[in-house]
């Protein structure tokens, strides 16, 4: 006989699991960063630093201590919510991430919205018309788009839609002449919060193309999963019974096919949302946008351990949080998940 689990306990378990995941991640990244060649103190001291100056910087950054001692210091600070000070910028890693994260988040959120808005209706449409030549064309087209390297796609989209056709701005976050107060760090949101609609429109216009490019691989995967799920569910006996009972086609799709078919899609969105933060570097570079990806790449280049750790942890937190949200959504909307998880 199974025992009832309170939803709060379920959430607490998930949170504990998430913290364990983050700690493991932080440890692995710390070990990897220490294992790769290069001397953080040498880089931080500067190209022309004398050996004495390098030694002083090493002591100042605490790099003269053992790796375990450094790791424990890092964990100690982490427990107090302190991500430390960057060895390359000398600023707070937390503040730097807070400066860069909103820009990436803006693109990632819009990318997910585009994926969902385009992929799910298209997959449903394609599945329900799965025998025609048009369906094959759609499938091949989606597969081709999804298979294109994001960096190349970004260059192509920018060249065609921005530079040639002038549909979108070429790069950046805001056009010259617009300025928005720094509230969240996401220009579109900040412009809306300050009531500056022209600036919001301009900022949003800078987000759409990078988000579209970033969304294409995700939308392709979402399309394939949704389509195959719809086909699988549509072939099940209860659908046949419903059809025989005279349930209308639109209602059949809306009420009986799409909801169960979306279960794996929701899981996919949760997993992919976190991944978008790390893959965003591919579009941030082309579209000249700041963000977590380019910040992390630069930190790796200069062997700025704490900044890399901070970025990885924040991305990890986003993945864990989005997984938790997905679990909760599933818990609410799917009685089978409720039955499995809470009893």
């Amino acid at each position, binding site marked *: 006989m199974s025992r009832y689990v309170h939803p709060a306990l379920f959430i607490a378990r998930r949170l504990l699991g998430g913290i364990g995941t983050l700690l493991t991640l932080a440890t692995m990244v710390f070990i990897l960063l220490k294992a790769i*060649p*290069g*001397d953080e103190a*040498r*880089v931080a*001291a*500067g*190209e*022309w*630093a*004398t*050996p004495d100056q*390098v030694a002083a*910087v090493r002591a100042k950054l605490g790099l003269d201590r053992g790796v375990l001692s450094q790791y424990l210091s890092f964990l100690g600070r982490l427990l107090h919510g302190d991500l430390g*000070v960057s060895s390359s*910028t*000398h*600023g707070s890693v937390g503040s730097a991430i807070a*400066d*860069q994260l909103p820009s990436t988040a803006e693109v990632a959120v819009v990318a997910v919205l*585009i994926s969902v*808005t*385009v992929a799910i*209706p298209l997959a*449903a*449409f394609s599945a*329900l018309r*799965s025998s025609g030549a048009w369906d094959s064309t759609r499938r091949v087209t989606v597969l081709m788009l999804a298979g294109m390297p994001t960096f190349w796609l970004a260059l192509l989209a*920018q*060249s065609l839609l921005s*530079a040639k056709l*002038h*549909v979108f*701005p*070429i*790069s*950046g976050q805001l*056009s*010259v*002449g617009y300025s928005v107060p720094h509230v969240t760090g996401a220009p579109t949101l900040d412009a809306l919060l300050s009531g500056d609609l022209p600036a919001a*429109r301009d900022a*949003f*216009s800078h*987000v759409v193309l990078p988000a*579209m490019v970033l969304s294409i691989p995700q939308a392709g995967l979402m399309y394939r999963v949704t389509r195959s799920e719809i*086909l699988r569910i549509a072939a099940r*006996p209860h*659908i*046949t019974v419903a059809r025989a009972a005279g349930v209308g*086609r*639109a209602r059949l*799709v809306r009420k009986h096919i799409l909801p169960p078919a979306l279960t794996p899609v929701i899981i996919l969105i949760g997993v992919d949302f976190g991944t978008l933060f790390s893959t965003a570097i591919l579009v941030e570079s*082309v*579209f*000249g946008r*700041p963000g977590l990806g380019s*910040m992390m790449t*630069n930190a790796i*280049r200069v*062997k700025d351990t704490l900044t890399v750790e901070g970025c990885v942890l924040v991305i990890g937190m986003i993945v864990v949080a989005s997984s938790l949200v997905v679990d909760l959504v599933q818990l609410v909307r799917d009685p089978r998940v409720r039955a499995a998880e809470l009893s």
Partner: protein
Amino acid sequence: MPVPTHRPRWRPAPGRLLTSAIAAGAGAAVLLAGCAGGQSSGADRDETTVIAYRNQIDTLDPARADYQQTDNSDQLLYDTLIGYDKGKMVPQVASTFTYSPDVTSIDLTLRSGVTFHSGNPLTAKDVVYSLDRYKAVGQGIIGQISTYKSSTAVDDSHVKIELTQPDSLFMGALSRVYILDSKLVAQHAGSDQAQSWLLDHDAGSGPFTLVSASGGTYQMSRADKFWDFDAKRPKTIILRRIDDQATIRDEIRAGNVDGGWISYDDKDAFAGKNVVVGASPDTFQMAIYFNTSTGPTANPAVREAVRLAFDYKGALSTIYKDQGTIANGPLPTNLTCRPDLPASAQDLNKAKAVLADAGLSDLTLTMRYQPNFPEHAAAATLLQSDLSKIGVKLKLEPIAFSDYLTMLNDPKTIPSIMLLGEGASYPDTGVMVVNTFWSKKIGTNRGGYANPAADALIEKAIVTPDADARCKIYSQVQQTVDGDYATMPLYTVSMLWAWRSDIKGTDIPSPGEGISYRSITVGS
């Protein structure tokens, strides 16, 4: 009830619904966004100069002005004591500057009437504070003034700088040392010498003041009380980070960006546009540094043979579209104080003869290069191909510059062959000669090079206050280095830039000075 095995074949009505959903969602977003696409606002673009830069500006703190991106930005916000104009040392905030006869101290007289953006006057105390702060920070620019001992404010307009040892390079290095508003910085010093505050704040007296710094975009406005005010400078300068050169090209073509470095492939991409394309004269020199102390390249015959095998002209043409000059000595071709040496040239027969005479065969060498520079990867591949023609196998191994710096700490770990692009950090030949070829400069000596004759010359130059006399010594050092085949100079490369045609003052006056955005003017 039998389970149907076929796929459903009905034609539901959702076609219109789905089309509407797509149109309402993505379509509406695209239309909303697209209406504004590619348009600038009504801002006065003629008064605003937008400059694209590549790679992250880690900080605006002048303590890190050893890093090019920081230096380029700080030139706008801060002043230095001295500067360079066409390779000659000229006054900036210091109106006079003289070495003591033994080159262990410097006397400076400050220009009067210089004020910081805060309104505070720039005095000798600010100079002393700035130098002491760089020493206390212990990172970055202090590496170039490592002989700094102390300084004294004799009065408000006179400063005496003491050095730990004779250093004839110190004065030139002051051209990279920015003066901070001591009162303002002290207010924000905290426990980190104001490093976190200066990351995105301005405490300078330069021609522009910082308006905002966020997300890689730095907006600055013209300082109307600047001591060398010029109304032709743009009212606003915006530095925008764009890493991808294709994006820089498209933004300049669209008129959204007014200037930036462009790819060699985009030389002709601005025809019909209001844009001028130019080449900065011989910005940096591509060179191969051999480990002259250990490994196969410790043998001078190996170094000579490798030098003779490379097709310099072919590489310059293929990789850089002939934007440069074949090297004729260890240092960039347009630095002063260089000896008259022959240009590097390929001679495969002589290369084979050198190897044969030395009894060398079946030689395998390893070269390290930075793969993030496509031009470096291309040159490495070409050298690999050329060396195969003389029977030498070259293995190519990528390396990050930060890792390379670490390897320089010990001659035993210095790569046998390392491909680098190098330029003087300020227009003094000595800075490259001393840091690169003096055996005592462990950590910056690129090849573990140690020749007592060269060392003696360098040590003589360091204590020589007379610039002309130093110049002759530097020339002799280069001859010695070249005679030892310590390096393999490839070509001095010009970088291409594109600017809106009404923007002037974008030329690089001399090597090492870099492009100075402070000299930019707008209009006729």
